[in-house]
């Protein structure tokens, strides 16, 4: 059998990295992967090994990714941790952009009104009692926040809410809800809310605290780096 080097494996601190040379055809790689994995003799008592697959400049459809996962499933000591590629689909890129763009509005959000955006919301104006702002990303209010604000409304627990004057009737981040104590009439200037380490409670701090708790506020960079 000729020596093919389309698939190479390296051990790393976190497990194994499996490189799939992007100059080979997908078919070649697939059959080579079968061979490489069958050749590995892993004992029953060995612990699970996490594998990161590095695709280089190759894009795999989710169907192709499934094929690879199926090959791995036959070798049950190996689990795919993640599949990494330098490439993403145009559609995905546009989605990320949409989800992480800053949407700027200059208006009041009055009682009974709902302002809902994909991505971060930057509102210049007040959110009045009975009004509501929602964003899949962060919510920034350059004005008084007296109504409801919901950040990370599609589930992003990293999202934050900040306001020049924070006196909300309710804050929501992902699926966590908090409201000010009933006795608390006065609001706070330049405050922000975010989920604490346990991701179970909303914590309030001066906005300056954000640089410590959420150093990567820019959602787009975060997506590109972490997928």
């Amino acid at each position, binding site marked *: 059998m000729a020596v093919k080097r389309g698939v190479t494996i390296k051990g790393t601190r976190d497990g194994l990295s499996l490189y799939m040379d992007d100059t080979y055809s997908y078919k070649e790689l697939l059959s080579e992967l079968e061979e490489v994995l069958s050749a590995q003799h892993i004992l029953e008592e060995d612990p699970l090994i996490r594998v990161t697959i590095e695709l280089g400049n190759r894009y795999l459809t989710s169907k192709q990714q499934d094929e690879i996962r199926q090959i791995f499933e036959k070798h049950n000591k190996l689990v795919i941790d993640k599949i990494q590629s330098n490439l993403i689909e145009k559609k995905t890129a546009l989605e990320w952009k949409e989800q992480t763009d800053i949407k700027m509005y200059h208006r*009041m959000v009055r*009682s009974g009104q709902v302002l809902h955006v994909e991505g971060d919301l930057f509102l210049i104006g007040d959110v009045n009692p009975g009004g509501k702002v929602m964003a899949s990303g962060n919510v920034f209010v350059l004005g008084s926040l007296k109504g409801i604000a919901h950040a990370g409304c599609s589930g992003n627990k990293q999202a934050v809410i900040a306001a020049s004057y924070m006196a909300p009737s309710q804050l929501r981040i992902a699926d966590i809800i908090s409201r000010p104590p009933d006795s608390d009439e006065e609001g706070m200037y330049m405050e922000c809310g975010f989920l604490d380490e346990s991701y179970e409670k909303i914590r309030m701090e001066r906005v300056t605290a954000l640089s410590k708790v959420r150093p990567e506020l820019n959602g787009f960079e975060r997506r590109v780096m972490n997928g």
Partner: protein
Amino acid sequence: MGEAIVITSGKGGVGKTTTTANLGTALALLGNNVCLIDTDIGLRNLDVVMGLENRIIYDIIDVTQNRCNARQALVRDKRFDCLHLLPAAQTSDKTALTPEAMIEIIQDLKPDYDYILIDCPAGIEQGYKNAVAGADKAIVVTTPEKSSVRDADRIIGLLEQEDIDPPTLVINRIRNHMVNNGDMLEIDEIIQILSIDLIGIVADDDEVIKASNHGEPVAFQPKTKASIAYRNIARRILGESIPLQTLDEKITFLGKMKKMLGMK
């Protein structure tokens, strides 16, 4: 060509009808041709406050259903020849009136009047939509209560979607001692929340109720607190710049002084 102004509030009972009657009277007093339109179908009041109840022959639904034309349905005021009322129907329901019919009536009447004031029913449904349909401008009435301000905010949000000028605000039933005690929202606070231009403040005044019961709007009286306030609003509508009454200044000034001194 006249200007149609809708008087609205969202919440009921805050003084829309009283404001309509008094601004109409005050504008007529200043020599304008004024037509009042009551759009509160089924709950008409404006005729009672104006003391014109038993002069009604036709109403607005008779007009929309072609039993008469708009001019035939108008009731002339007892005191002013230049002040007319198009009454609401007492028996029909809200669905009998449509925004299209309102626009038609207002277009029809506009050439004859300087001002057409439209008394809007409470709520944000059909009745509100009818009342706003033909208006060029809007006056929002609120009292210094949280719920009233909340509803005014809701209405302003809806008005902003209409093709009319930004609405102006009347704060009604201000009670000096309650504001000073911090039991009522302060004027500054209300304006800050609603962020629209204030066109007048009317004190809570027993004379208003007395006058309404006599079918003679308080604006007709020479110098009660409320009548002066209404006449000032009328002059502001006419474009004069009149400072807010000293009463109002006292409220905020006193309030601030007390705050500074740490009094509640």
